[in-house]
């Protein structure tokens, strides 16, 4: 799914990480752990091609960064949603369907059925048709999850989806992720400072530390870092 060869992440002003090598298999669910500013979000943005590779090689789903974004869905940590007051989560989901294609958007019966299926999958049936601005943070996050799945991605990138959620909302979000894991074949990379709450559902971890970027098959190997919260 992802191959990094002597990859350095960062900006034009300098590298955030030393060169590292990684190989992640298809459909793996990966947790990304590390302190703030270690390069976790930069890694996801580099995978999307939004930030260029500083040095080395990065291959995603057999292609260069930015070339296969139709197969990748991204839930950013911070985003600006400009929905009108009465527009619902369903409007957000449908507006994202094939959003890069030109022409008039149209909600076909097939698309409507797909949206209903996803709303059901993430457990948002009771509020998906309500005005989006009236939803709680946790409800909005589950709508984002349905939105991310509408284009049938092969890879899902989640940047701090559990941040700002109360324990109850976190639990619901993790349950939604579990259901996705059971019903959909796709890879997932999740950044979280609450990794202990989700670790049991993940296949492996990538640890961003002062010594570099490492692949860890279990959470045990990153336990020495107190910020992991285990």
């Amino acid at each position, binding site marked *: 799914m992802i191959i990094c060869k002597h990859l350095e992440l960062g900006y034009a002003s300098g590298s955030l990480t030393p060169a590292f090598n990684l190989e992640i298999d298809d459909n793996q669910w990966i947790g990304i752990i590390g302190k703030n500013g270690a390069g976790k979000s930069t890694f996801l943005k580099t995978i999307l091609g939004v930030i260029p590779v500083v040095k080395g090689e990065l291959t995603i789903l057999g292609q260069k960064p930015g070339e296969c*974004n139709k197969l990748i869905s991204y839930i950013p940590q911070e985003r*600006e949603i*400009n929905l009108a007051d009465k527009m619902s989560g369903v409007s957000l989901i449908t507006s994202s369907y094939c959003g890069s294609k030109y022409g*008039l958007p149209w909600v076909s019966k097939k698309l409507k059925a797909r949206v209903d299926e996803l709303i059901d999958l993430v457990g948002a049936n009771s509020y998906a048709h309500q005005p989006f601005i009236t939803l709680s943070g946790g409800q909005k996050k589950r709508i984002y999850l349905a*939105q991310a799945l509408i284009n049938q991605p092969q890879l899902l990138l989640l940047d701090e989806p559990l941040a700002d959620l109360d324990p109850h909302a976190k639990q619901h979000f993790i349950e939604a992720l579990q259901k996705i894991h059971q019903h959909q074949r796709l890879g997932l990379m999740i950044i979280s400072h609450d990794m202990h709450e989700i670790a049991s559902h993940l296949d492996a971890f990538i640890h961003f530390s002062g010594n570099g970027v490492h692949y860890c098959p279990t959470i045990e190997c990153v336990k020495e870092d107190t910020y992991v919260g285990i």
Partner: protein
Amino acid sequence: MWAYSFMQNALFGGIIVATVCGIVSVFVILRRMGFAAHALGHMSLTGASAAALLGMSSILGQLVLNGLAAIVMGLMGDKVKKNDLAIGVVLTFVLGLGAYFLFLFQNNYAGSVMSILFGNIFAVSNTQIWQLLGLASVILLIMLVISRPLIFASIDPVVAESKNVSVKLLSVVFFLVLAITVSMACQVVGALLVFVLLIIPGAIGIQWGESIYRIVAISVGVANAALILALYVSYHFDLPASFCITMLLCCGYFIGVIKALIKRG
């Protein structure tokens, strides 16, 4: 009253402008470009005065100047809606130029300043109708082509960019659409009141509509209804048409505000 050719021209010209403004205003609001729309309206004055200096038609001057300003603002991308200061500086610079052009041409031009500032829908000529129709066709064609990525990038710009939607290109194209719309609307309501047609129909659409198509339909319907009613009131009560359009649209918006207040209890 519709038997008079000047009333027919006012009606046809007004409907073309109201329809285009009804569509564009929804995106102006979704993309939070109110100040940019306001600034482009004011810049039209400079475009018209520069055109007068060069002996060209005012709409041509407005199109050229607004187009250039739109490209500059569009290239600033998503910063535009957060960077009021930059728009303010461009606006001040262009308005300063406008004041100088008026000073150079004051003897011949100042008399028509009022019609540029406040518009004169009853002076729309047959030639202008064809110009408006041509420009409206260009706008509708562009909107048909870019509507899907434009809606996506307007509603959720960060995720749209991650899906390879060219947010910056869309920003430039939509600014150009806005620049053409402003130049068209100036013929009807003038440079000062163009803001009304570019904000209020979309705002009313957002008050009542739940989906993007419904919002656009309400916006276009309201803009046209206000225009036709304004022509009727203006003709029978001898009031300025741009004043009537403004008052009717503002009343429409306040009805939505009152309804929301009643609903909240």
